[in-house]
């Protein structure tokens, strides 16, 4: 009998403790608001660190919501002029060496982008956490000097690629500093680690992010945002197939 009492008391105490945590879904909304802008224009550096070599690629990127994005690679020389256009569910790549535009579909979507830990599929993922997940704050943690909430996200629909995500979110800035994506069965598949954060206007934004496919060897792919502007005016023609060949 005592055991049961103890259990009940334990549950009550724990519930009380949880009650101190804010609503996870509200936090998700604030993350979305911070991370997603109407439009962005950025210059980025991607450093792919494989077992054998390290490759650095630079690109200029435009995006509009989570629907449309356009990237043009500027370095290294071998990749210069390569352009990538995402428009809804479609993805095209222009290869200057062959002067051809190809649509990435089928099995090609599973391939990695420029040898990185990101696949084209990952690029195609929807970016709104609030729409796709319901979240519970599980605890708090000082992560690399910042106070964070530990959040557990569960997919709302069974069709979402990652059914479970764990996030460490900066309590103050609403930037997810660390992210774990899990397989349905519970196996850790991918991690994202924000190494540096920058301030742009009144929002905080990740500046240096390390993506890692946890099933794969290697040090992962480092993604650095050199410069980013939010809510800039982007001419519509940027997101057209014609701009791939320009």
């Amino acid at each position, binding site marked *: 009998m005592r055991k049961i009492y103890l259990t009940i008391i334990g549950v009550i105490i724990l519930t009380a403790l949880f009650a101190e945590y804010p609503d996870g879904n509200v936090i998700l909304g604030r993350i979305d608001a911070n991370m997603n802008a109407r439009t962005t224009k950025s210059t980025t550096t991607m450093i792919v660190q494989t077992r054998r070599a390290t490759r650095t690629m630079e690109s200029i990127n435009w995006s509009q919501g989570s629907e449309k994005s356009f990237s043009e690679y500027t370095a290294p020389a071998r990749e210069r002029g390569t352009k990538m256009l995402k428009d809804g569910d479609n993805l095209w790549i222009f290869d200057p060496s062959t002067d051809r535009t190809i649509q990435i579909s089928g099995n090609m979507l599973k391939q990695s982008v420029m040898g990185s830990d990101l696949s084209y599929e990952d690029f195609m993922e929807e970016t709104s956490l609030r729409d796709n997940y319901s979240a519970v704050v599980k605890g708090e943690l000082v992560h690399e000097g910042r106070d964070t909430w530990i959040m557990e996200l569960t997919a709302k629909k069974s069709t979402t*690629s990652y059914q479970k995500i764990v996030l460490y979110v900066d309590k103050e800035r609403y930037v997810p500093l660390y992210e774990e*994506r899990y397989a*349905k069965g519970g196996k850790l598949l991918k991690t994202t680690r924000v190494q540096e954060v920058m301030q742009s206007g009144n929002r905080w934004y990740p500046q240096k992010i390390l993506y890692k496919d946890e099933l794969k060897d290697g040090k992962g792919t480092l993604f650095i945002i050199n410069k980013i502007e939010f809510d800039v005016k982007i001419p519509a023609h940027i997101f057209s197939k014609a701009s791939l060949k320009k």
Partner: protein
Amino acid sequence: MIWKLAWRNIQGAGLRSLINIIIIALVMIGIIWSQGMYEGWMRTAERESREWLNGDGRITHKLYDRFDPFSWDKSFEQIPENIQDLVDKGTAVPVLITSGTIYPEGRMISLIVKGIPAGQQFLKLPTAVLADGGDDIPALIGSNMAKSSHLKEGDIVTLRWRDMHGAFNAADIRIAAIMKTPYLEADNGQVWMDLERLQLMKDAPKTATFIVIKDAGDVPQTSDAWTFESIDFLLRDMHAMMKTEKTYGYLMFALLILLAMIAIFDTQVLAVFKRRKEIGIFAALGMTQKQIIRMFTAEGMLYAVFASVAAGILGMPLFIYFGTVGYRMPESYQDFGIEGLSEAVIFYYTPAMIISTVIIVVVITAFVSWIPTLRIARLKPTDALRGRMG
């Protein structure tokens, strides 16, 4: 009479005749040998295809396209009841297909995941090893796949796949066995596991992508979602490839025939030139030009006829050897992924191929021997007797 004279002339020409006959015989042996190879190769590939994967044809989901992994996410459905009856009887084997990724030693390899009932009997795949339960999922791969992925028996490797809804999932699979299969379509770039387990993993119970049928005679009526693919249909790529191969083969032999025929032609041109005095004698003795032409042509044809006999005698040990022991491609060729080449190809000869080869060679030889003799018609007997060309 013409044949008798032609025969005497061939006998008289001795070594030169023998060389011509041997050249033609070798060409004939080559042609029959290679045709026998193609025929044997095709039969081997067809047998392997039947034994290992395709049975007597299969009932396939309409949306399935084996070259488009995207289609695999849509191309499966619950096995129709009347087909399930065949499965229960043991005369049909359902297979479910999905795409996946494995990470052996941290490398990433995309592959095809195939589910097949561990208890199936009629396909040669050693699926019994898939039944063994335990914590990890037993899987079966072919030796080619083992080589390319550096996987060994007993290795445990993480497999990532998407369930039928699209969610990622991952689990460890154990390589329960590495099978040696000559049928590469059941080997390259794929891993086999138990059907029920894969159905569970996909969250798609009782489904299949195609159902292999043991006897095309008892294919039941199915819904519009399914279509019956006969063995011929399934082998169409191979037939097409074989046709190309054969065409190359024929081209090569056309070249060989050409060379042999140039030898004959040369012999004949030389003969007509060198034997013009003889032609004059034949004329003086009362042969008509027609008879002389016929005799020369008959000589050429006799070469081919004797060559046929010689080909039979000389080629027989070769034909028998390749028809019984067969020919094994060097290992390096087996990696090309060409069906029917990874086990010894037993050559197969049909009467039609032998008869047609003989007829073609005899006719062409006759034609080639006839052309130069047309000069005889222009030859005046008096000039011929003096050893002059007209």
